[in-house]
């Protein structure tokens, strides 16, 4: 084989810093090629896609709003994946969080009190946790593969959400359209411009998780169980407990993301809601952030940028929105490929 990888004795710190930069540079290069192939000046294309959305306050606000749920979910997933717990159903957990938070305005429409807001956020967290607890329980109790159960439950959550918003939770004055009443007053999050409280919560959550993961025993336990399950068990760490912990954590944060989304952006429940792809993007965020909760903030902003850039490219360059998905996929590819450089040295060998 002409190409050979040689494991580094120590992960390279230089590469750890540079590999995402290289990955982004390669994605930009790829993007330039795509633009050129469609007859668009590559530099102009890249400017519209990646820089214009950063150019003024309005765009930056949108960027932060878009990144908020991604960071909340990505940070929780970063911890999970470190512990080798593969929750890929955050989209369903988010939806359940949104649903639970929405119960308050639907059933207690006129309840206006500063307490309402934290109650709704708490319900959102509980909703996400409850939905995430199912695959965790099935994994611990019955050894059922959590990748698949958590994913299947995304579809089920969507059907439940749809059924309720079309039925029991429907706005009686809404001409029978599938939406709830509008949230009012304290049922919404305080906001600054478009940016709502969720952004602050996301930053706090990410920082807190990073502290837990790298500075606390719990974090050490999770990382050990992820990297060396056997050693972890010898050390007396419980794998079952960590599975519950990770699912409830990521599920709770996804539920919080859902609650923040409906309380800060949508101000009502409506169906159809999110798609599984939204959850997949959160998974990219976790990886792009190098499975570091603080990294998820940067990664969440970057992925949000690919969404906004996709919109901008549609309106100014008239290119279809599929480009955004292609960019997201390619970006993840390059990130994963470049991560190899952190752990390995690439050697080229002449054939024998």
């Amino acid at each position, binding site marked *: 084989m002409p190409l050979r990888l040689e494991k580094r004795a120590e992960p390279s710190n230089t590469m750890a810093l540079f590999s995402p930069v290289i990955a982004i540079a390669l994605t930009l290069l790829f993007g330039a090629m795509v633009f050129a192939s469609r007859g668009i000046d590559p530099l102009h294309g890249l400017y519209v896609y990646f820089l214009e959305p950063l150019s003024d306050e309005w765009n930056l606000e949108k960027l932060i709003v878009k990144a908020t749920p991604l960071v909340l979910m990505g940070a929780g997933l970063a911890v999970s994946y470190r512990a080798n717990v593969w929750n890929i159903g955050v989209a369903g957990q988010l939806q359940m969080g949104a649903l639970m938070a929405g119960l308050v305005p639907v059933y207690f429409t006129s309840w206006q009190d500063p307490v309402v807001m934290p109650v709704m956020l708490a319900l959102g967290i509980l909703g996400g946790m409850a939905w995430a607890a199912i695959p965790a329980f099935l994994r611990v109790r*019955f*050894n059922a*593969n959590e990748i698949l159960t958590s994913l299947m439950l995304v579809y089920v959550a969507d*059907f*439940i959400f749809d059924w309720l918003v079309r039925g029991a939770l429907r706005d009686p004055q809404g001409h029978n359209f599938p939406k709830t009443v509008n949230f009012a007053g304290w049922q919404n999050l305080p906001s600054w411009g478009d940016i709502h409280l969720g952004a602050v919560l996301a930053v706090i959550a990410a920082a807190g998780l990073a502290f837990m993961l790298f500075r606390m025993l719990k974090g050490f336990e999770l990382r050990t169980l992820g990297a060396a399950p056997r050693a972890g068990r010898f050390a007396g760490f419980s794998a079952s407990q960590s599975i519950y912990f990770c699912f409830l954590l990521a599920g709770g944060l996804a539920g919080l993301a859902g609650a923040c989304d409906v309380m800060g952006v949508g101000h009502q429940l409506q169906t159809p809601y999110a798609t599984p792809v939204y959850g997949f993007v959160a*998974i990219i965020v976790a*990886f792009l952030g190098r499975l570091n909760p603080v990294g998820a903030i940067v990664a969440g902003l970057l992925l949000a940028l690919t969404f906004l850039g996709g919109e901008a490219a549609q309106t100014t360059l008239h290119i*279809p929105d599929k*480009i955004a998905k292609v960019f997201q996929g390619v970006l993840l*590819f390059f990130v994963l490929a470049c991560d190899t450089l952190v752990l390995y040295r690439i050697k080229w060998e002449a054939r024998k």
Partner: protein
Amino acid sequence: MEQFYAIAITIVGASTPLLIAALGELVVERSGVLNLGVEGMMIIGAVTGFGAAYVTGNPYVGILAAIFGGMLMSLLFGFLTLTLLANQVATGLAITLLGIGLSALIGENLVGKQITRVPNFQGVDILIVFSFILVGLVSWFLFRTRYGLMVRAVGDNHSSAHAMGFSVIGLRYACVAFGGGCAGLAGGYLSLAQTPQWVENMTAGRGWIALALVVFATWLPQRLLFGAYLFGTISILAFTVQTFGWGIPSQLLSSTPYLVTVVALVLISRNKRLLTANTPACLGQAFVADR
């Protein structure tokens, strides 16, 4: 009788793409690799197959192109995970995202176009027949041939397989390519035989079902046949029940296939002996040869 046949053949049509895609993934996982990109490879197969059939006017060329398209995507996956040792879960997801986006780009000008579909007799086409043969072939290959033994050995313990002189990476590449080809073919089945047209996102989550079926089948091809048909049957019966007008919420009926998959996974997984006997022990683990 006629009514029964019509329902049966509808079930077959719904089950076939799941079966083909899952058979491919089964071989991949037997070799110790977890490729979550089935959905992405399927949708690429659907578009390349349709495109080739449209350009050449020949659905059989379309079938080959679908296999080829899926295979190309899987080799991309292979390069990242096997050569560059990237995380398999994340790479699989990247394949899915890229596949959905890329297929929509490729297919921009194929929307609304028409092709000659894969011919069928009373609803039975060559791919349906082939899917059954494929079950036998995969089973025979895995459990009756030397290469099959090698694949299982690599999936169960790549270090000792390597020590015995097997090319772990080479075998895994071959399995990944086979899985990609199957996924592409399954996608092609949708766009060339089932509903012969190209529309964006037409696989609509079937790749994920195929993945679930592999675990459901505890990595055994015959059980996969059962699982795919169980899923197909439930999906179609959910529609049939609706025509009776019983007023069961359609959301409940639509979610039964997913719920049943979860329940089945639980039932199978709780039997540890059954599971450990067949689960490839090295599933999802990267292999680096020590020199």
